[in-house]
């Protein structure tokens, strides 16, 4: 499947130290010769901060290693793809209530433990800044710039009432479980996070 992607320009903080402006081009050319490009598929299911961190670190690092990387976002994982300015998703009261209780957007991910009404993630992000660790959103943007495919789950979109225009730029059209399984079974490694 081919898709035309618009990749977001990286924020200046991420490109400083790079002498050349970021070339926004298509994915790196396939390795010449007989070496097959390795493929990694990550199923992002949880949406928890620590798991979203793991997903974005592994995806960006694998793409940096010139692997073909796709992330399939399903259930709470789908909330990572919701645009930051979208406060509430959903069209009926139940969908809206779910989004009220669990704010969408990668910057609003919560810790699965020690969340303490946002105090835990706040401390975690403060520590991350102190130790030069990029936040999930920054890693996701870099992953996109390195050609990582972001694929939302159609069923999760329907069930939670999320429309494609509520998702960040560069996300591919939503697919179903069969398409996700095809990706997974053809990949060299797959992770369910």
């Amino acid at each position, binding site marked *: 499947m081919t898709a035309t992607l618009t990749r977001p320009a990286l924020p200046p903080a991420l490109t400083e130290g790079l002498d050349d402006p970021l070339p926004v081009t298509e994915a790196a050319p396939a390795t010449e010769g007989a070496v097959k490009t*390795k493929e990694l598929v990550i199923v992002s299911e949880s949406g928890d901060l620590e798991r979203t961190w793991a997903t974005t670190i592994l995806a960006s690092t694998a793409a*940096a290693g*010139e692997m073909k990387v796709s992330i399939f976002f399903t259930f709470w994982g789908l909330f990572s793809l919701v645009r930051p300015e979208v406060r509430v998703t959903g069209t009926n009261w139940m969908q809206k209530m779910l989004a009220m209780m669990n704010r969408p957007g990668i910057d609003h991910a919560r810790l699965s433990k020690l969340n303490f009404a946002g105090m835990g993630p706040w401390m975690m992000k403060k520590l991350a800044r102190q130790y030069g*660790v*990029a936040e999930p959103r920054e890693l996701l943007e870099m992953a996109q710039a*390195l050609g990582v495919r972001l694929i939302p789950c159609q069923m999760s979109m329907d069930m939670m009432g999320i429309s494609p225009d509520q998702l960040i730029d560069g996300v591919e059209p939503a697919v179903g479980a069969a398409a996700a399984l095809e990706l997974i079974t053809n990949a060299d490694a797959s992770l369910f996070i």
Partner: protein
Amino acid sequence: MTVQTIAARVDARGLSCPLPIVKTALAIRGLASGDLLEVLATDPGSTKDFTAWSTTTGHTLVESSVDGAVFRYLVRRK
């Protein structure tokens, strides 16, 4: 002896895993084949990361050195 100039630099000092590698990968895409990229980092894990990354990608790790707390890598784009 041919002296080759460094085509681009990545300053990843103070940055943690995986930023040194990710920033290197972003920078090397803008270079031509054979160009040299210099990377400075302070992440102690970066030494093994750069060796592994060079093996996976096929970009040559020309030099891997350390000066005090700063690691320096010289990478040639394949």
